[in-house]
């Protein structure tokens, strides 16, 4: 006869933090991301020449905004991927491996991103 493999993991293992961080970062990103995207295309130069980029990057306010963008984007995006991964049943070891990979990607790219911004 057919099997029913449902097992309840049990125990409080909240995804609540994860959930509202996804929402908070998302809402903040609306401003930063859409702003960024529009700005980059506002004039043909704004996003595509060294000079235009440099002009902005030398202002501290823009530095902060760009750093926030990298941070929020990575957090939200990789946390999002983590959410997607959790939707699929897999062996616990697999989950741990994937989680580690995501955290590593986050750290590495965060470092690369900040490095670029802070170099100027």
């Amino acid at each position: 006869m057919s099997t029913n493999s449902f097992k309840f993991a049990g125990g409080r293992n909240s995804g609540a933090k994860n959930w509202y961080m996804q929402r908070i970062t998302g809402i903040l990103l609306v401003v930063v991301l859409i702003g960024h995207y529009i700005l980059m295309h506002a004039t043909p130069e704004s996003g595509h020449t060294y000079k235009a980029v440099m002009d902005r990057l030398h202002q501290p306010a823009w530095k902060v905004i760009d750093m926030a963008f990298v941070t929020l984007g990575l957090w939200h995006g990789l946390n999002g991927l983590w959410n997607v991964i959790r939707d699929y049943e897999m062996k616990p070891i697999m989950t741990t491996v994937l989680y580690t990979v995501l955290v590593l990607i986050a750290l590495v790219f965060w470092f690369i991103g900040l490095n670029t911004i802070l170099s100027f």
Partner: protein
Amino acid sequence: MSLQNSTSKFNRWLDVMFRYRKHTGSWAWILHRFTGIGLTLYILVHIIALTGLLKGEAAFNEEMKLFSSPVFLFAEWFLGILVMFHAINGIRIVLVDLGNGARYHKQILVFVYILTVILVAGMGYLIFAHV
């Protein structure tokens, strides 16, 4: 036993995903998920691409020439579809969980689609007006 019983979990999942009717909410979810994954991959690529700034003005501008070509501008416009839809639908998802949002998700979704189309069209104008 039946397809629902015997084949691998993945196949069963695919099978159901294809056979089951897609309601408005399903489409929104599928689009949100794909755009989210797409944007995440893009942001990674983007971060790498910008390390070009470190190589100095000449090298960076050389790279950017490539990105200023019509093909790439088009690609960037397409990116805008992902950005706009994901962002606006993201707001909808937040609204759904607030107050009585869950009772109006369909109405909000209509707004999301309309707003996305308007914004994407506007961006198209911005991007291509200069070409």
